[in-house]
């Protein structure tokens, strides 16, 4: 694991494998990384917003639990983004297949399930009659 972290911070190490590709591929990889980073930042912002703009929920600390889940998801997206960037760049330099990943599917499912739970919560409140 420490070796992977060292690899993210060491451009020299990355340059030592394979051949230098067309710079446009590297820039496209960098932009994909930045798009993932913004996805992570949006999740972090969502967590921070949930913590300060949601009214207190009927379940004790449910608001804080939602906020912390979003924050941790955002942090995980950021760490995974830099790892995927490094592995993709390596594959491009070596002319290998790009690394496959289940992460986008897992993230999409998590966000989808979270949204469904919120829809259910809103409906229960509306039908319950106190909202």
């Amino acid at each position, binding site marked *: 694991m420490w070796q992977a972290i060292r690899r993210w911070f060491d451009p020299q190490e990355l340059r030592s494998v394979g051949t230098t590709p067309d710079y446009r591929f590297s820039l496209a990889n960098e932009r994909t990384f930045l798009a993932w980073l913004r996805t992570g930042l949006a999740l972090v912002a969502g967590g*921070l917003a949930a913590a300060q703009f949601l009214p207190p929920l009927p379940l004790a600390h449910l608001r*804080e639990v939602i906020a912390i889940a979003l924050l*941790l998801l955002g942090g995980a997206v*950021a*760490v995974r983004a830099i790892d995927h960037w490094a592995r993709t760049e390596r594959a491009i330099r070596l002319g290998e297949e790009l690394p496959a990943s289940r992460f986008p599917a897992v993230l999409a499912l998590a966000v989808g399930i979270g949204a469904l739970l919120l829809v259910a919560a809103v409906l229960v409140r509306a039908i319950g009659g106190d909202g």
Partner: protein
Amino acid sequence: MADGPSRVSRPDPGLQPERTRLAWRRTALAMTVVMVLTVRLALPLGRAGVALGAVAVLGWSAALLVCWWRVTVARRAAYSRALPLAALATAGYATLGVVVLIRGVW
């Protein structure tokens, strides 16, 4: 060769460097939103809140410097430490947010 357009001055198809520069700028803007939300959440917590807010502002300054550095000083480098540093800043904001929340509730 002499009358044709020079290879060096030919505009890049797809304007890749400019698109990358704008992507860094959007990322810096997203970081600004996160910094503002962190400070707003932390400030009501008294002295500890002010300290945590100061950490958020200092981290934001450093992150913006990294974004600016990547697209100006280091714009010709194929690979840059700006990428892991930007990821680190995002993970740092996630951690800081969790600390502020835990501090606020318990």
